[in-house]
């Protein structure tokens, strides 16, 4: 199970990578493992749309569930990942890389303080397994 140290995480299994005032987000390795085979990803967001922390930006469908994916912090959407429409399996094979879901401009950087670092998130996952 992967928990890249350069990312921040939410308790609802989203990750965020911040570079300056741009951010990229998706779902974690733990999440894709729990969902099992992802068959469909639907983007609910559009470029230029403002979304708050906790607003859903995508829906992920696997063979056993349909789950909303939430913004880890608020921002204005700049790009959504079109590749996931034809290749939803990327979520399972490369959740932190090719399966990024949304890119956005950060609205309030202080919201990052409320997120988990890799170690805390890993602990959070282990607690749920026991």
């Amino acid at each position, binding site marked *: 199970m992967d928990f890249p140290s350069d990312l921040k995480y939410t308790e609802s299994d989203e990750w965020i990578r911040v570079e300056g005032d741009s951010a990229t987000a998706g779902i974690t390795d733990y999440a894709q493992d729990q969902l099992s085979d992802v*068959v*469909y990803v*639907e983007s*609910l967001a559009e470029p230029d749309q403002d979304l708050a922390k906790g607003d859903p930006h995508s*829906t992920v*469908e*696997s*063979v*056993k*569930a*349909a789950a*909303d994916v939430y913004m880890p912090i608020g921002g204005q959407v700049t790009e959504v990942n079109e590749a996931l429409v034809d290749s939803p399996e990327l979520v399972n094979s490369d959740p932190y890389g090719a399966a990024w879901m949304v890119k956005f401009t950060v609205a309030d950087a202080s919201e990052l303080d409320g997120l988990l670092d890799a170690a805390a998130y890993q602990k959070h996952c282990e607690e749920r397994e026991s």
Partner: protein
Amino acid sequence: MAYIPHTDTERSEMLATIGVKHIDELYEAIPAEVRFPDLELPEAVSEMEIMAELQALSEANLDVSHATSFLGAGAYNHYIPSMIDHILRRNEFYTAYTPYQPEISQGTLQAIFEYQSLMCQLTGMEVSNASHYDGATALAEAVILALNQHRLKRKRVLLSATIHPHAREVVRTYTQGMGLDIVGDEDCNVGPDQLIGLIDENTTLVAVQYPDFLGHIHDYTAVGEAAQEAGALFCVVVNPFALGMLKPPGEFGADIVVGDGQPLGIPMSFGGPTVGIFTTKDKYVRKMAGRLVGETVDKDGKRGFVLTLTPREQHIRRDKATSNICTNQGLMALASAVYLSVMGKSGLRKAAELAYHKAQYAAERIDGLGGFSLWNEGPFFHEFVVKCPKPVSEINAHLLEYDILGGYDLGNDYPELKDHMLIAVTEMISKEEIEDLVAALAEVDHD
């Protein structure tokens, strides 16, 4: 699997476990005065006597084996091939429930898959669900699909006035409280071209009926194009029997095709059960409601069938599901599938052509009668409207004296069509029966 009832010992054990002495104690929440009411039933009679009594009761009803019916308006007297009953009454189909466990339901699943495939072929569309309750609810689900496709940002729904009045009413019932603006059906004289003028960028769905409620066959190509240009979805409500002869909506730009399957081998049965047809394009499949059967292979590579795309459904997606529908009309869908396979492409065409030609003949004969005139101007399929010299109810009372069931009183739904009768002619009607109708109508007083 044998049914094994509880033994008295098991009953005592269960009661002891829950601390109850006698089963009557479990009914104590019901007030004593209504707990075990006196049913005042008549004395029991023998099976022989009750059969005679029920037989007499049933003969008090007039049915289409004892009357000639010219009544349509959504439920039609078509010939039902005997093959259908033979297959429907097989226990495996008759008692089958929803096929959640594919390993013991391949028969049901394949039957539904065949039904879906046939509906796609008939309508010219890419995907069909396992069916809805009836044509009216299928139309309501089409509205809901469109609303969800537009993420609830568009709230205007255009319904043609010549869609069946019941279907339009069901759409309004289904969507009450959703803040929709359902327009377009205030005046039955609003034709397809005028409907185009009502399409705007807030329109989510434009729906028309084909043939329409008044029998007309319209060319809706321009309506479809206008809907597409405005980003709205285009839905066509069909009579599947008419598709034996008419161009399927998939070939003139429909996004969704819905309809009532009663004409395909299902008896009228005083209004139901029937089956709701719902077909659409692949790109909308994830917003489509209802069950969906898919074809796949098992672990040994053998073809098999399963319920698929289940994350659409409310037991998985919960409040995010687009509909609460989690069932289908299995037995009636099977009936329509058997009907189509028994009739075949050429049989269906032949039946549709017979109905069409007999209707044209009947219309011509009635149009020639004093006091009656054909209201339709353009081409019609197997139903047409006749302006009558007297109220429709009076004419129908007269026709009943000859064991003829007259047509539908359009004044019920369209104030501008008071004293107008909607007459349906199916392949079951003979030339003699048409002449009998004409002769009876000729007796009606007119000025």
